[in-house]
C-alpha cells in the first residue's frame, strides 16, 4: 500500500499540487484521473521520487520514502516498476535487451535464468518472436507491452503507469488495460495509473482519484463515479457526446 500525505509542489511560483493526500491500495488498480494540466503526472512523479515535493511525504508500506536518504530510496525504487507515457524503451537496445536490462543491472541471476524470465514476461504480455527487434521496428501498442514486460520483469511490488493508453487505438487501449489489471491481480501489486481515458476508468478503475487544478476533489470507485455529485467531475466524465447520451 502507498500512502501520500499533503503533497504540494510549485514550479516557478505556480502551485501545481495543493496538498494532496490519498492511498493506493494493494492488489488494486488505483487510478488518478483529471484533465490535462491538473497535476496528475507531477503527483505520480512525486510519488516515485522523480520530482521532490515541496511539502508532504510518501510512505511505501509504512516506509518513509520522501525523507529517506538516497540509499534507502534506491532500495524502495528497486521494488518499483514503471510504464512511461512514451514507453521510454532504450533506443540502442533490442526488445530482449530492454526487458533484460533491470535483471542485468540489479540482480545476480545466471544468464539462463535471466533469459527464461525475459521470455516468460514477454510471453505474459503476449509478445513472441520479437526478441531481436529494435524499438523503432515495433508498433506503439507493442512498445507499451514491452514497457510492461520491463516493468514487471524484476517482480515489483509497486507498478506505476503514466498514461498507458496515450497514442493507442481504443481496442489496443482495452487490451493494455486488461493486461495491467490481470498482472495486478496475479502479482498482487499496488498499481497506480495516471490517465484521462474514461474507458480505462470504467474498465479497471477499482479505486479512482479525481484531480482538479491541483486539488483532490473526489475519490471512490468506478461504480460510484457517475453519481459523485461533484460538478467538475461530472463535466470531466460526461465530456463527450456518447457519455452525455449514456447519462
Amino acid at each position, binding site marked *: 500500500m502507498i500512502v501520500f500525505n499533503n503533497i504540494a509542489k510549485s514550479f516557478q511560483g505556480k502551485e501545481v499540487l495543493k496538498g494532496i493526500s490519498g492511498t493506493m491500495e494493494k492488489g488494486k488498480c488505483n487510478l488518478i484521473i483529471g484533465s490535462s494540466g491538473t497535476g496528475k503526472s507531477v503527483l505520480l512523479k512525486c510519488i*516515485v521520487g*522523480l520530482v521532490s515535493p515541496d511539502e508532504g511525504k510518501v510512505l511505501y508500506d509504512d516506509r518513509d520514502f520522501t525523507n529517506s536518504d538516497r540509499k534507502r530510496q534506491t532500495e524502495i525504487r528497486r521494488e518499483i516498476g514503471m510504464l512511461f507515457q512514451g514507453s521510454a524503451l532504450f533506443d540502442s537496445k533490442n526488445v530482449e535487451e530492454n526487458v533484460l536490462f533491470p535483471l542485468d543491472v540489479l540482480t545476480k541471476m545466471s544468464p539462463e535464468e535471466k533469459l527464461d524470465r525475459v521470455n516468460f514476461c514477454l510471453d505474459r504480455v503476449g509478445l513472441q518472436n520479437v526478441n531481436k527487434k529494435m524499438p523503432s521496428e515495433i508498433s506503439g501498442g507493442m512498445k507499451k507491452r514491452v514497457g510492461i514486460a520491463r516493468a514487471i520483469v524484476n517482480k515489483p511490488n509497486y507498478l506505476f503507469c503514466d498514461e498507458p493508453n496515450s497514442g493507442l487505438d481504443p481496442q489496443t487501449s482495452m487490451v493494455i488495460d486488461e493486461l495491467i489489471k490481470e498482472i495486478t491481480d496475479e502479482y498482487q501489486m499496488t498499481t497506480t495509473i495516471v490517465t484521462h481515458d474514461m474507458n480505462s476508468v470504467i474498465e479497471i478503475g477499482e479505486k479512482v482519484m479525481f484531480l482538479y487544478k491541483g486539488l483532490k476533489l473526489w475519490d471512490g470507485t468506478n461504480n460510484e463515479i457517475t453519481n459523485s455529485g461533484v460538478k467538475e467531475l461530472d463535466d470531466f466524465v460526461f465530456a463527450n457526446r456518447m457519455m452525455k447520451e449514456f447519462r
Partner: protein
Amino acid sequence: MKSIGKFFIFTGQLFVRRESFTTYISLILDECIKVGYNSLFIVTIVSVFMGAVTTIQTAYNLVSPFIPDYVISLVVRDMTILELSPTIIAIVYAGKVGSNIAGELGTMRITEQIDALEVMGINSTSYLVLPKVVASMIMYPMLVVLSAFLTIYGGYLTSLATGIISGFDYIYGIRYEFIEFNIAFALIKAFVFAMIVALISAFKGYYTTGGALEVGKSSTAAVTSSCIGILLADYLLAQLLLG
C-alpha cells in the same frame, strides 16, 4: 554561477551509488568504440592535411638563406606536439563526440529514458556519464598520439611531393633538439581536454528540457562550451607547465 554549481554537483554525482564494476567495463568498452574508433577517420583526415598545410606555410615564412631547411620540420614538430594535435583535434573532437554525447543524453532525457533508469533505482548520472568520461580519457590521448604522428607524416609527404625540403632534412629537423617533456605536456593536455569535452557535453545533454529543438540546442551549446573550456584550459596549462 548557478550553472557552475550545478555542474560540480553533477560531476560529484558520477562517483556516488555506482553499479557493479563489471557493468562499467562493458559500458566503457562500448563507449571507447564510439568516441575513439569512430573518430579515427576525421582525426586522420584533419591531421594529415594539418601537417601538409603547416609544412607549406612554415616554409613560406622561412625564406632567409641563414635559416637551415630542417628548421621547417622542427617548427612543424613543436607546433604539432605542443598545440595542433592536442588542441585543434580537441576542437574537432568536441564537434564530433561532444555533440554526439549531448544529443544522445538529451534524447534520452526528453523520451524519459533517464527517468526510467532513475525509477529502477539506478544512478543515471553515474551509469550514463561515467563510462563516457572514462572512455574519453582513455581514447583521446591515443587519438592525440596518432594525430601527432599523422600530422608530422603529412608534413613529410608534402615535403617529398613539393620539394620544399628534402626528406633527409625533414627527418633531421624532427629529431633535432627534441624535448621529451613536450610529449608529456601534450598528453596532460589531452587528458584534461578529454575530460572537459565529455563532462560539459554530458552536462548539457543531461539537463535538456523540452523537445527535439532543445536537443539540437543542447548539442550546439555543448560544442560551444567545450571549445571555450578547451581554450581556457589550454591557456592555463601552458602558463602552469611552460610559463
